[in-house]
């Protein structure tokens, strides 16, 4: 579904990605772990071209993202994204946050989009917050609205960029359980995370990134219990 070929990305003289290749299949949940500055977030942001790769290619359903003249806005509709800092639109209420894109881009009527939003809010466990503004919500609630907003476009794949890192500890659980719900429904997901327990539980595959490359890749059982790479071992010994 997403194929990444030999991705390089530099910011000035700083090389953040140094040749990353991988393939993410339909229905798969891939968790990306690794130390800060290892290029995890940059890798994820290249998947919907929020970051333009210096070289290399990204294919979504066989269509190259990086080729010039491609309608990037159309392709992005297939890829939902959830950010560490939520990035809800503060001047719109929850309902408007969720319905804006489907109404503007999918030609949905306001009523259809609202019905769908109500359904999505119920799914993420926020049935009674339709008309609140984001600044009235807790961090965990904001992140769940952000998930609902991304889902409203019916994406084929969801990208999560450290979705629980900006949350107070007691709110991490509610966001993770909303994400688990998606896993159960068979959503294709790429999750950059520091929640090793979550990665181990729901990941079909774990990518360990370090210094701009995928240093090790394996099933959760193998990677967590039996890491092959020296750097993976030293990283896991610090975080587990």
């Amino acid at each position, binding site marked *: 579904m997403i194929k990444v070929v030999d991705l390089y990305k530099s910011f000035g003289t700083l090389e953040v990605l140094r040749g990353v290749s991988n393939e993410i299949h339909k229905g798969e949940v891939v968790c990306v772990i690794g130390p800060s500055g290892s290029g995890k977030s940059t890798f994820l942001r290249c998947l*919907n071209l*929020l970051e333009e790769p210096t070289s290399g290619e990204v294919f979504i359903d066989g269509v190259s993202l990086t080729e010039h003249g491609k309608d990037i*806005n*159309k392709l*992005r*509709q297939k*890829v*939902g*994204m959830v*950010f560490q*800092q939520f*990035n*809800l*639109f*503060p*001047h719109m209420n929850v309902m408007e946050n969720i319905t*804006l*894109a489907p109404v*503007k*881009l999918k030609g949905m009527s306001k009523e259809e989009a609202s019905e769908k939003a109500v359904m999505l809010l119920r799914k993420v466990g926020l049935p009674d917050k339709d008309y609140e*503004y984001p*600044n009235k919500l807790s961090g965990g609630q904001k992140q769940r609205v*952000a998930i609902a*907003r*991304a889902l409203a*476009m019916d994406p084929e794949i969801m990208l999560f960029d450290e979705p629980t890192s900006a949350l107070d500890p007691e709110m991490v659980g509610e966001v993770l359980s909303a994400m688990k719900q998606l896993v159960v429904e068979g959503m294709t997901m790429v999750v950059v995370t520091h929640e090793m327990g979550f990665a181990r539980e729901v990941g079909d595959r774990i990518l360990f990134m370090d210094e701009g490359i995928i240093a090790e890749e394996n099933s959760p059982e193998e990677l967590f219990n039996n890491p092959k790479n020296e750097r993976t071992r030293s990283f896991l010994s610090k975080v587990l």
Partner: protein
Amino acid sequence: MIMKIIGKLSDEIFFNLIRENRYLHFVKGLGISIQLTFYAALIGGAIGLLIALARLTNNKVLSYFASKYVDIIRGTPVVVQLLIIYFAVFASVNMHRVAVASIAFGINSGAYVAELIRAGIQAVDKGQMEAARSLGLSYSQSMYHIIIPQAIKNILPGMGNEVISLWKETAIAGFIGLEDLMRGAEIVRGRTFSNYTPYLVIALIYFYITVMMTAALGKMERGMRKSD
């Protein structure tokens, strides 16, 4: 003592305002000053928006010229700009002085407005544009629905201050022979030889209009904050 002061005061009022209908100079001047401020604010707003957008584009040439515009306008006195525009740029064109002065003040104000708008747009969190784009909205849709509405809240207070400064800056319109409020006071003073009364009168008028503008601005800001 008190009677003397009251007597002097009523003399001053009589000579500077009532005799020969001299108050008409102030009324007429007020009209000109308000017109100048109004048109200059419109022109300045339009120029400011264009310059701000030019500065924010990736087009190097456009953004270079936009930033030079701001530098030059902010680096020279507005009265010098007014005189250059009147005597050099529009010298051979027979245009109404109010129009010339409005354009001059508008060109000046535009540089300041451009900086306000640019700063207001840049102050919106980068994540907002990213979130909008990640949903599939185009750059211009994201600007229109997400960035600009948030930027307006940042820009509005500064914009109000800009109009208030503009209102007071128009007091130099007399340099090109316009009979604005300031010039009105000088005409009256030339007739009555009062030391300062005409100036006190216009100071009060300038001040009162500023107070009204400040109040209107406060009301608008409170209105915007409601959606927070």
